[in-house]
């Protein structure tokens, strides 16, 4: 690593580097030998494009690096490159991601295994840079696979896993890796960099097969179709995202074998849940204050645990319902909003309730909490406040179904 600080040399070829979450994803792109990368600056996503740019400029990475004139073109270019058989990488943040929306909708429809990083950022206005999850969540219904990570190591590992899953012929669907702006994209941590040999073993070459757009394989892609065709096309994509659940499991198992790092259940992380009465839930980097608060509350004798969702699409509903049925109450912290939704809860809370409603086990009450919008800090006292309300619910006391936390009121 010419740029990263190599802090220690581990057994054989595995190195470590002090890098940000964005840079970790850039390193994953280098290791995955991505062919075509498009860029258009917007904070905090731009941190990944800058780092890839450096890797290319330093001769450490060989790829087509195209700076587009806007996000829409940025995503269209990689869509086409992927159709022609290139491994691609792309990304954006906030309204930049929304500007690409038309391209984002056609990408899963055309079964393009694009990997994108979303540097989560509040949507405009008022033009805040800080994290909110509504940008990435805007594609949740379209066939994108969506995963949230909470540290730089996980960002690197998940990017490699995402390529393996997305490019699996059974799937061929795009995947967005969500990284919280600032907390993950702009803070450096020591990350283990796997060796090229390990990555080569884990990640087969992208083979588009019969869908390859190439003169030797003449095909028409995306002709116009009417109501006689649309339902069948959507049903095919349902089948693919249904399969994704199993392919993700396979990929994590294989990852553990090759890299020796285990993530347990790929879909969600459980923290101090084995004896917990109640649990909190959330996605991304709010895991840090939540875990700190839980340790503090545990010292005070409160049996609180935490379930951090990684994969939001596919949503492991049955597994989650089974897990949550063990607890007396659940508090879901959403770093997003869903205006006018059932009980005006956030997106995750609503999905968790749906998963539980149809699950076979016990159905603990689910309280929704909106917190940390626009990058506002979620503090330890905030988490304690949330926990107090969830404890009340666990004792059968009625609590508001949605509460705003950390709001000046």
């Amino acid at each position, binding site marked *: 690593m010419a740029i990263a600080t190599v802090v220690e040399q581990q057994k054989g070829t595995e190195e470590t580097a002090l890098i940000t979450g964005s840079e970790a994803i850039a390193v994953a792109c280098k290791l995955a030998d991505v062919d075509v990368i498009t860029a258009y600056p917007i904070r905090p996503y731009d941190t990944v494009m800058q780092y890839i740019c450096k890797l290319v400029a330093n001769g450490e990475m060989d790829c087509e690096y195209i700076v587009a004139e806007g996000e829409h073109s940025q995503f269209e270019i990689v869509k086409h490159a992927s159709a022609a058989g290139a491994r691609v990488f792309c990304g954006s943040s906030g309204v930049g991601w929304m500007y690409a929306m038309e391209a984002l909708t056609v990408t899963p429809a*055309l079964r393009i295994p694009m990997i994108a990083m979303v540097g989560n950022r509040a949507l405009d206005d008022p033009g805040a840079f800080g994290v909110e999850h509504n940008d990435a969540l805007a594609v949740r219904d379209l066939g994108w696979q969506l995963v949230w990570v909470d540290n730089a190591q996980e960002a690197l590992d998940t990017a490699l896993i995402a390529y393996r899953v997305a490019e699996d012929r059974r799937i*061929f669907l795009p995947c967005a890796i969500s990284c919280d702006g600032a907390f993950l994209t702009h803070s450096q941590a020591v990350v283990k960099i796997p060796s090229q040999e390990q990555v080569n073993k884990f990640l087969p070459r992208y083979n588009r097969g019969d*869908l390859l757009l190439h003169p030797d394989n003449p095909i028409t*892609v995306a002709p116009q*179709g009417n109501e006689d065709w649309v339902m069948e*096309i959507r049903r095919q994509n349902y089948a693919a995202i249904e399969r994704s659940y199993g392919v993700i499991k396979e990929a994590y198992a294989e990852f553990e074998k090759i890299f020796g790092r285990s993530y347990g259940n790929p879909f969600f992380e459980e923290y101090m849940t084995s004896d917990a009465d109640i649990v909190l839930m959330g996605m991304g980097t709010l895991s840090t204050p939540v875990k700190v608060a839980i340790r503090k509350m545990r010292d005070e004798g409160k049996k609180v645990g935490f379930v951090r969702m990684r994969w939001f699409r596919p949503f492991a509903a049955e597994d989650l319902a089974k897990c949550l049925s063990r607890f007396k109450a659940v508090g879901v912290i959403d770093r997003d909003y869903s205006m006018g939704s059932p009980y005006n809860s956030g997106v995750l809370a609503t999905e968790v309730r749906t998963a539980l409603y149809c699950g076979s086990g016990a159905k603990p009450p689910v309280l929704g909490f909106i917190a940390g919008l626009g990058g506002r800090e979620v503090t330890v006292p905030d988490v304690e406040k949330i926990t107090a309300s969830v404890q009340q619910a666990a004792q059968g006391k009625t609590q508001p179904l949605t509460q705003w936390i950390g709001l000046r009121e």
Partner: protein
Amino acid sequence: MGRLFAIEIIYRGIFQKTLARNISRAIVLAAHKEGKPGISFGRYGDSPERNGIPAKSFAIVATDDVTLEEGMAKYEPKDVDITICVDDTLAKGVESWAWYGLQPVNKLLKPGGTLIVTSRLEADPIIAMCHRKETPYEMAILKAIPSFSGLWVYKDDHTDVRILGAIAKILPDLFSLKSVQAAITDEWHDAVKVTSAARAYEKLTTVTVKPTQGNPEVPFKFDLPKWHEMGEGIVIPSIPAGHKMEDPGTHATGGYKPDRNPTFKKFSTRTMRPVVDFDTCIKCTLCWLQCPDSCFDVTPEGLYDANMEACCGCGVCEAVCPVPNCVTMVNESSFHDNASQWVAWRKDKTNYKGWVQEKIKGHGERSHGFRYLGQYEEQVPEMLDIATKG
């Protein structure tokens, strides 16, 4: 349950779109005069904005609101009392932009229903163009060119109100002539148009078409694949490149016939087709080069044979051919199959010469629009005369 009435209007986009809409609107308005609720709409999957593309409008009327709702609870009516065809070349069938194959023009007609065709031909040649139907139906010919009535640049020829008068005669339970005339007055404020409706009412005659009459061909259709049978990613494999042609007499091979999509064929989108005089062709390649749909098969001797399962009837080949009368566009009603002209020529050149002469003589008639400068000035007053005098 009360009684439900359904009428469809089959027309060509875009110039007949207003005509079709005016007819279906007026049907609903005339029925409304008698207290019957109704709805007028166009088939959404069609593309009526495209020039010449077959499309449909519907008027659904009922004796009460509940019955009307029953009639509307489907994408398009499955059976109709009257089918109105305002371009006689559509008697060969309806090839919608939302391609479902070729739909016979009389497909939706109830047993004993009536097909009204505006045409300058007699009933017999029109019947020959229509696919056979298992049950007998009535046919009424309203003498008229394929009208653009209602189009703002087109002088009114009263085709719309003549059709309305005819409906009052055929289906008196739907509305009376009096109601139609009242609706026409409300819509157009034109006493002459009211008279034209009455003339059509008085003069209308129908003939019964028996199941043994008409085109015996089974109309082209195809089965839609199941979702798991379809290729993924909205990807369609290309059509193979093509192959050499074979001379029907000598069996010599040569030339080039491109392979074409076996499912998406061209049928009644076309109102005219090229008739090629192979004896005068100088093999300049221009027709082959300029045809927008790659219709021309190159024969072993280097001639160009327009394939009628691909031709949209645009007339470009006629326009670019440098030899007088070598390529002539001829109205579709003159043909009853899509057979190769070159094969016919190879089999019997003298016979073919006579066939060409017969086809191009007086048949250089366009159904959709006008064929030569001044034709509009000739035809529209004639139509108006027929309308008002009957």
